C-alpha cells in the first residue's frame, strides 16, 4: 500500500483561504450537534404526544397513533429527507413553497423537521411501552385522587414512563446524531459532509475520515456518560434500576 500519511493537513488552509481544514471539521461538528439537538427536541415532544395517543381508550386515536408510527418507520430516512426537501415545497401553495425554498438555512431546517418526525415515531413506541410497563394501579390511584386524565398523564404516568425508558432513549439520541449525516444528501455541511469535503480538496482520504470517526466516537462517549449519570439520578426507587442495596 502506497499512501502518504500527512496528519498536518488539518493545519493547512482550506480552499476558502480563511479557514483551516480543522475549522471545516469543527463547523461540521457544530452543524451535526445543532441539527441533532433541535431534531431531538421535536422528536421528544411529538413522540410523547403520539406515544400517549396509543395508550388512550379510544380505538380511533390508538389507530391514528399506530398509523403515524408505521408511516414514519417504513419509509427510508433518505427518501423522507427528499420528500421534505424536494416534494413538500411543490405541494404547498406556490407562495408558501417559494418562501420555503428561499429560506437561507433550508437544508438545516428540512433536516431538523425530517429527523424530528422520523425519530418521533421511534420515541413514541418507547413512550407507549414505558406507560404500558407501569403497574395499572398507578393510573387508577391517580384517577381515584380526583386527577383528570390529562393531569394523570402529566403528573404521574409520563414522568414515571420517561424515567423507565431512559436507556432506550439514549440509543435513539445516539441514532439521531448519526442519522443527521443523511442530511448531507440535501446539502447540509454536517460532520460527514465536512470530512468528505476535506478529502476532496486535500486528497488525504484516511486522515479526513479517521478524524471524523474519532469525533463521532468522542461524541458517543460523552452522550453515554452523560446519560449514565442521568440514569443514576433518575432511577425509579424500588425497581432493579435503582440498585439492590438502596
Amino acid at each position, binding site marked *: *500500500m*502506497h*499512501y502518504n500519511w500527512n496528519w498536518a493537513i488539518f493545519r493547512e488552509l482550506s480552499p476558502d483561504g480563511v479557514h483551516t481544514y480543522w475549522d471545516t471539521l469543527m463547523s461540521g461538528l457544530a452543524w451535526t450537534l445543532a441539527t441533532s439537538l433541535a431534531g431531538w427536541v421535536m422528536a421528544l415532544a411529538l413522540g410523547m404526544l403520539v406515544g400517549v395517543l396509543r395508550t388512550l381508550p379510544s380505538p380511533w386515536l390508538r389507530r391514528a397513533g399506530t398509523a403515524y408510527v*408505521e*408511516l414514519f*418507520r*417504513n*419509509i*427510508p*430516512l*433518505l*427518501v*423522507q429527507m*427528499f*420528500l421534505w426537501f*424536494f*416534494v413538500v415545497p*411543490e*405541494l404547498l401553495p406556490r407562495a408558501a413553497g417559494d418562501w420555503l425554498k428561499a429560506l437561507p438555512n433550508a437544508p438545516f431546517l428540512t433536516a431538523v423537521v425530517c429527523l424530528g418526525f422520523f425519530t418521533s415515531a421511534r420515541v413514541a413506541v418507547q413512550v407507549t411501552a414505558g406507560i404500558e410497563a407501569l403497574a395499572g394501579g398507578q393510573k387508577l390511584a391517580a384517577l381515584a385522587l380526583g386527577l383528570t386524565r390529562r393531569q394523570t398523564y402529566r403528573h404521574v404516568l409520563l414522568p414515571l414512563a420517561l424515567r423507565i425508558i431512559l436507556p432506550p432513549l439514549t440509543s435513539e439520541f*445516539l441514532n439521531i*446524531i*448519526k*442519522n*443527521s*449525516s*443523511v442530511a*448531507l*444528501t440535501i446539502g447540509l455541511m454536517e460532520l*460527514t459532509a465536512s*470530512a*468528505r469535503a476535506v*478529502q476532496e480538496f486535500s486528497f488525504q*482520504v*484516511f486522515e479526513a*475520515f479517521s478524524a*471524523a*470517526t474519532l469525533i*463521532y*466516537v468522542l461524541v*458517543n462517549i460523552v452522550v453515554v456518560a452523560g446519560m449514565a449519570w442521568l440514569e443514576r439520578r433518575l432511577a425509579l426507587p424500588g425497581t432493579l434500576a435503582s440498585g439492590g442495596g438502596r
Partner: protein
Amino acid sequence: MFSQFDFDVIARSWLYLFRTGMAFTLELTVLSMLGGVALGTLLALGRLSSFKPVALLAATYVNLIRAVPLVLVIFWFYFLVPYVAAWLIGAAEPVKVGTFLSALITFILFQAAYYCEIMRGGIQAISRGQLYAAQALGMGYWQTMWLIVLPQAFRNMLPVLLTQTIVLFQDVSLVYVLSVPDFVGAASKIAQRDGRLVEMYVFVALVYLLLCCVLSWLARRLQARVAIIR
C-alpha cells in the same frame, strides 16, 4: 395540488425502476443479510468467548461500528477497499473494486455489528442446563454451539433478525451517496432527467411503505408463531 401530477412518468420508467433499481436493492439486501448474520454470529461468539483478547477485539469492533453513521462507513469502505485489495494481492496501485462489491462489503461489515448484538442476546437467553447437557454428552465447544446453542438462538431471534433486515433494506437506499442505481438512485436519475421529482419520490416512498408494512406484518406473525413453539 395534484392537478399537474404526471403519472405517465412512472408508467414510462417502472421497468427500469424495478428491473435495475429494485433488483439491485434486493440483491444487496439479501447478500448483506446472509453475510451479516454469518459474520455477526461469529462476532457474537467472539464477544462471549472466555479468551479475553478475542472478546475485547470483537467488542471494540462492534462498539466502534455502532458509534459511526452508516454514510461515513460507506465512504470509508468505498475508499479503503481498493487499498486493502491492492495490499492483499500485492498490487502497486489501488484495485478498482466496483461499487456493488464495495457496497456489499460495507453492508456486511456494518450490519454484522448489529446482527452480533441480536445473536448475543439470543445465545445468552439459552439456559445453562443446555450447555451442561451437551458437555455431559461429551460434546466440544464447536459441536455444542453448532448443534445445540445456535439453532435455538436463531429460532428465538428470527423475528428480531427479520426486523433488523427491514432496517437493512431501508438503509441500502444510502448507497445513493455513491451514485449507484439502487431503487432510490434509479428513481432520482429519472426524476432529474424528466424534472419529475414530486411524482418519483412520492412513488418511491409509497413502494417502500407498502413493502416494509408487509415485511413487518410478516415479522409480527412470525413472532407469534415462534412464541407458540417455545
